[in-house]
């Protein structure tokens, strides 16, 4: 018998108690090992296995694996090594047989990656994870299971470090540790070799900083890295590690954001950017990551060189030691950063030039035009234009939000100018003043005849057309149309075509005017025309008719030489060009343009829109004669052409793409809006009938100017209805004018426009203000949005009640203030007695006396109190804290006066009394006191005659600072104001900075010698996002302080009154040399406020 068989026979019985397979495994194992070891060794091996099986309750599984695996690995080991391995296994089994089993089972695959000598280390790693509890055992088992795969990508050392990480994770969550371990293999396999170590290092850093992010990192990390250039990944990960070790918890989010940003940038640039980021990281890790985060945005605005310069400015901040400032800079949340960006960028943003362009447009056109971004028109869903094309409807000019046509900023600004000038040109030169059948300067109108002919033709087909009647003025009126242009367009079957031709003709006319009248802008107009003509689409790819129209457009750009047209049809083209030249002449009017469009239509309509392939003629440029052709209206006839080619396959016709410097032209719509406006203004245009809704609908359905493309699925009618409402709303409130306070009566507000629709009554004006970030020592640009609105009106009774309640105080205050009122305004001269002697008068007196003339000596002058020219703005804190009852406030600070001497009955008595009191009079809140003080102050100010404004502020967050106008500076005191005082109610938070800035702005806009800003509050400034977190106080205090100083700098004297007993704490900081007062007893506020004012306004 072989030793194997003999041994198995001998020992098998020992194994019988364990799982059934064990003896078989033994046999198999022995078989496998037979040739390799001698008998003694074999016996040792078997005994080891049995010992293992007997070791603990479940260790037979380990033994099973042992028997099964040994033959395989024996090939790689000496017997001694095998022994050693057995010892390792046994050690592990001492902790957990499950673990041992896993270890044994995984050994073969492990040995493919590591050497036998490493087995110790490997087993130790797994062993480390085992802590005794079953979760850790499972983990270590998992480890052994997965580690061979890991070892395929990582060195043993690296795996060791991974185990560290996993070990750390176990302190928080086994589930996390497991998932990381499970996923790790695949992750590392997919990473490039050079990236694995860095990935691991970063993982360590992340785990240390924020263990929860580890999962995210392992889940998303590799994907995020995909966006980074492969050669730079390692560097990026290294940077991320350093940053994370520096900043801690923010590390992973910063990494994720930076990676996302890098994805948006060209890979070639990653190297430089990462190098830069790495360079500044030692000074400020956050700054370096913010830099990467902002990079795509900056890159969209600047060229690489420009970006370098922008970045350098940020580095300077770091060099000066201002890390916070640099962080804000790279985060693009500092004014400095934005200024630098706009200075360097060639791109011109509309907001930076819109005020100036508005004045420019106003000067050129003589109309009160506003300048808005074309995004607004798209938002408003009037649905008529593409986002980047300029346009106008007669009262507002819409321009694209930015211009980036040329590489220089100055040139891009000129582009804006050309856009604007073309739009004002339309206004100045009457593009929207078309009148049906009116003659032009160079042409006579054929519209009337055409209409008559059309009517006659229609009658013959027995379809009655709308009556044509003559009104008193003798002009024909068509009852079915609503605007002049519509009537004109109705003359033509192909509306699309006539609309396109009219646009070309009219634009040519306006271009010619602009060129003539404004020599300064002529070169730029020419440049844009040139540029446009170089970008035109290929004529030969279009249908014939479309090519015809396209060629006309090219002629209108001043480049007739770019025309391409079939040889045999040159006559038609010649006629068309001659016609177009008519509108380029001096004194041409829009009527001429219409007439020219008419003849062009007649020419075009004869041309079929067939593809080039169907025509077998050469396409040639025009000859010199045709380019120089004189303006002339065609006399009819075909101009000597060959007959038109024909084919059955006609293409769909589209108007050529409108050059962007001319923008969209929608005369129908504009006239419609003008008419609606007139109607709403109550004027009736004598020659046209008022618009009915049906007419409007018809107009919209027929008009090609409106592309109602992206409407919600569903009926067109309701979409049109919505559109109409928008149109009417828009017509009723011309841009730039303040809206009526009450919503328009009767009309439904269609299509929610966000903020407008919230409250129909209150109109909110929005203003933007910067906020001071004291850490960065810079402003956050346009950070806060202040919504100014009129306060709600309540009842008149409240005001009266307060007057009656404080009757005595009111009378006293009034008297005090009346005494302050000056009797006259100036220096009074020629008095018999006074403060000063007027020298001129004294001399004159003296001389007169000498001459023998003897009037009384009136040589004195006196100065009365300096002319009172005071304007004061009261800012009341309307935050939720003012809702607090005064009782409660008092309880915080005062002890119970009563001492009940331990007698409960006395206490109950007191409590009952108090409850009774409260039942009669509801507990006063702080806001109530503020209101009462307001009433008193108002009475005082009316007595003295100073100008004053009363405002309340509150809000939530920086986007919604509420500014309530109770009485504006210019406003007269009236019942309305009294009612508004009633309705002052607590709202939410206290963001003082923007409220102060807005009130300061109001005072600045007002004319007065002395300007005062008095703020009444009940606590410190605090608000959502007003500081790093809700508990941080310094940020808000600093910003408020800055706002107060800004007020001082422009000549406004601020003063703070607070009822917060802890006021001194922060007011000391906030108000360096600005006056403030902490009112001890809140109830004395009504008395105190007027007195304070008196002192303030006296100097």
């Amino acid at each position, binding site marked *: 018998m072989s030793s194997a068989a003999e041994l198995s026979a001998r020992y098998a019985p020992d194994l019988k108690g364990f799982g059934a397979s064990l003896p078989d495994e033994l046999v198999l194992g022995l078989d496998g090992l037979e040739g390799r070891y001698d008998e003694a060794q074999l016996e040792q091996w078997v005994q080891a296995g049995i010992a293992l099986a007997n070791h603990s309750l479940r260790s037979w599984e380990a033994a099973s694996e042992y028997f099964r695996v040994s033959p395989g690995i024996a090939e790689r080991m000496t017997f001694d090594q095998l022994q050693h391995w057995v010892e390792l296994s046994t050690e592990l089994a001492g902790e957990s047989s499950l673990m041992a089993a896993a270890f044994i089972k995984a050994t073969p695959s492990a040995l493919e990656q590591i050497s036998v000598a490493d087995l110790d280390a490997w087993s130790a790693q797994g062993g480390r994870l085992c802590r005794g509890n079953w979760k850790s055992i499972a983990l270590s088992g998992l480890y052994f299971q997965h580690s061979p795969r890991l070892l395929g990508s990582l060195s043993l050392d690296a795996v060791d470090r991974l185990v560290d990480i996993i070990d750390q994770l176990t302190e928080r969550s086994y589930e996390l540790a497991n998932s990381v371990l499970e996923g790790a293999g695949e992750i590392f396999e997919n990473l490039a070799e050079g990236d694995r170590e860095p990935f691991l290092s970063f993982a360590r850093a992340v785990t240390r900083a924020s263990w929860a992010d580890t999962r995210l990192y392992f889940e998303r990390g590799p994907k995020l890295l995909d966006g980074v250039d492969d050669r730079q990944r390692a560097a990026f990960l290294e940077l991320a590690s350093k940053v994370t070790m520096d900043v801690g918890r923010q590390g992973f989010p910063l990494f994720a954001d930076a990676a996302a940003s890098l994805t948006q940038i060209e890979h070639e640039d990653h190297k430089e950017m990462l190098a830069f980021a790495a360079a500044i990281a030692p000074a400020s890790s956050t700054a370096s990551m913010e830099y990467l985060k902002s990079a795509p945005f900056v890159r969209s605005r600047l060229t690489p060189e420009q970006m370098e310069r922008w970045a350098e400015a940020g580095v300077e901040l770091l060099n000066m030691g201002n890390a916070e400032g640099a962080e804000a800079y790279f985060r693009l949340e500092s004014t400095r950063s934005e200024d630098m960006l706009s200075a360097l960028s060639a791109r011109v943003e509309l907001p930076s030039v819109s*005020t*100036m*362009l508005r*004045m*420019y447009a*106003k*000067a*050129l*056109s*003589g109309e009160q035009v506003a300048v808005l971004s074309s995004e607004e028109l798209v938002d408003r869903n009037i649905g008529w234009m593409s986002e980047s094309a300029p346009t106008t409807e007669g009262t507002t000019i819409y321009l694209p939000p930015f211009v980036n046509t040329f590489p220089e900023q100055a040139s891009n600004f000129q582009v804006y*100018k050309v856009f604007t*000038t073309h739009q004002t040109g339309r206004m100045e030169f009457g593009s929207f003043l078309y009148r049906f059948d009116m003659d032009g300067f160079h042409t006579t109108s054929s519209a009337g005849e055409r209409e008559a002919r059309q009517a006659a033709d229609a009658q013959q087909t027995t379809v009655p057309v709308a009556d044509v009647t003559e009104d008193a003025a003798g002009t024909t009126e068509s009852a079915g149309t609503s605007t002049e242009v519509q009537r004109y367009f109705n003359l033509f079957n192909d509306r699309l075509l006539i609309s396109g031709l009219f646009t070309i003709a009219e634009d040519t006319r306006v271009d010619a005017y602009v060129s003539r*009248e*404004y*020599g*300064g*802008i*002529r*070169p730029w107009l020419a440049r844009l025309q040139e540029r446009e003509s170089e970008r035109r689409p290929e004529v030969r790819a279009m249908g014939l008719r479309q090519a015809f129209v396209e060629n006309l457009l090219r002629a209108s750009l001043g480049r007739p030489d770019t025309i391409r047209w079939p040889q045999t049809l040159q006559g038609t083209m010649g006629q068309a060009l001659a016609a177009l030249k008519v509108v380029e002449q001096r004194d041409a009017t829009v009527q001429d343009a219409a007439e020219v469009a008419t003849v062009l239509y007649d020419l075009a309509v004869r041309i079929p829109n067939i593809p080039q392939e169907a025509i077998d003629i050469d396409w040639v440029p025009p000859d010199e004669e045709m380019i120089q052709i004189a303006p002339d209206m065609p006399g009819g006839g075909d101009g000597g052409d060959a007959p038109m080619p024909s084919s059955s396959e006609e293409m769909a016709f589209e108007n050529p793409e409108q050059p962007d410097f001319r923008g969209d032209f929608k005369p129908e719509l504009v006239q419609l809006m003008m008419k609606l406006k007139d109607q709403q203004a109550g004027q009736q245009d004598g020659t046209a009938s008022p618009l009915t809704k049906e007419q409007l609908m018809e107009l919209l359905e027929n008009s090609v100017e409106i592309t109602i493309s992206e409407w919600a699925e569903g009926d067109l009618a309701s979409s049109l209805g919505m559109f109409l409402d928008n149109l009417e709303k828009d017509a009723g409130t011309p841009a730039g004018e303040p809206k009526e306070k009450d919503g328009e009566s009767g009309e439904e507000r269609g299509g929610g426009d966000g903020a407008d629709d919230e409250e129909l009554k209150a109109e909110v004006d929005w203003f933007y203000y910067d906020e001071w970030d004291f850490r960065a020592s810079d402003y956050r640009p346009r950070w806060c949005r202040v919504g100014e609105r009129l306060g709600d009106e309540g009842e008149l009774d409240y005001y009266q009640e307060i007057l009656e309640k404080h009757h005595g105080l009111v009378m006293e205050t009034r008297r005090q203030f009346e005494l302050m009122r000056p009797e006259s305004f100036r220096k009074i001269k020629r008095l018999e007695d006074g403060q000063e002697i007027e020298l*001129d008068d004294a001399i*004159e007196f003296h*001389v*007169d006396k*000498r*001459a023998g*003339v003897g009037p009384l000596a009136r040589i004195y002058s006196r100065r009365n109190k300096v002319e009172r020219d005071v304007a004061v703005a009261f800012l009341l804190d309307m935050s939720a804290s003012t809702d607090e009852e005064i009782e409660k406030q008092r309880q915080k600070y005062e002890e119970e006066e009563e001492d009940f001497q331990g007698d409960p009955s006395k206490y109950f008595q007191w409590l009952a009394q108090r409850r009774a009191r409260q039942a009669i009079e509801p507990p006063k809140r702080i806001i109530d006191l503020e209101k009462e003080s307001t009433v008193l102050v108002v009475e005082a100010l009316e007595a003295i005659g100073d100008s004053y404004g009363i405002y309340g502020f509150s809000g939530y967050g920086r986007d919604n600072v509420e500014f309530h106008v109770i009485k504006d500076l210019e406003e007269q005191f009236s019942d309305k104001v009294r009612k508004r005082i009633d309705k002052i109610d607590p709202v939410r938070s206290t963001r003082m900075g923007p409220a102060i800035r807005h009130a300061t702005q109001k005072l600045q806009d007002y004319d007065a010698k002395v300007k005062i800003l008095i703020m009444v509050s009940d606590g410190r400034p605090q608000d959502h996002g007003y500081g790093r977190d809700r508990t941080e106080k310094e940020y808000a205090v600093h910003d408020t302080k800055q706002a107060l100083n800004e007020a001082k700098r422009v000549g406004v004297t601020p003063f703070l009154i607070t009822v917060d007993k802890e006021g001194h704490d922060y007011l000391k900081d906030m108000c360096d040399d600005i006056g403030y007062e902490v009112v001890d007893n809140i109830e004395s506020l009504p008395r105190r406020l007027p007195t304070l004012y008196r002192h303030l306004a006296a100097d």
Partner: protein
Amino acid sequence: MTTIEHSPGFNQIAVEDFRITEEPFYLPIGDEVELFLAAYEQKVPVLLKGPTGVGKTRFIEYMSWRLHQNIGEPSEEGVPLITVACHEDLTASDLVGRYLLEGDDTRWIDGPITRATKVGAICYLDEVVEARKDTTVLIHPLTDYRRLLPIDKRGELLEAADGFILVMSYNPGYQSALKDLKHSTRQRFMAIEFGYPGRDQEAEIISKESGATHEIAMELAKLAEKVRNLKEHGLGEGVSTRLLVYAGKLIHQGITPRRACQVAVVWALTDDLEVQRSIEEVVTSIFEE
């Protein structure tokens, strides 16, 4: 003209002797010339209303020369023109006259109104609203049919000589509510309103006054029209013709048009940077260089 002193460098003339001997260039915008001639004949006092730089003073100079043409009378050298620039501290003595010390004696010296009344001159009170109301009222008797000037200190009444006419100028858009003409004063005068001329007329004026070419003058007039559309933006009344003439003069001297407009129009009109920029953009749109 009796010249008090004549040196190579300057002429010093007594105020009541100042006459215009050469025809000043004035382009009538409406019928103001006829109106003034009629008023003069009828001895009706005249109030000239209008913004600054629009030609009021030039008009009066022209009329004083023109009246000379119509009067073949004693003083063949035209009607004298006496101008008083009014201000807040103007007193009655300033207008009527006062005693001065001369050694140990006193001497009475006539004020401008008194002189004008004596010689029968055009007495032109410029920016009359600036003066205090108690000063203004002393001219009331001169506006009556009596045409008397009381000289209180001397206890005299002065009857105006033939040919005397009282003219005032007044800028309605400029004053605050406090400084306005009292109705008792206003209603003693007939008013001629002056406004900016139309483009063609303005171009002619510019061209004539400055020596600039007609084309340049037309462009300057165009510029003025556009800038006047911006009235509300702190520009007060808009650009005066005078400034345009300055610009024209500079251009005539060889300064580039854009630069000339910058100094003569933009910077003179406003200090607000935004407004300046906007006007400059209009300038660059109109002028090529």
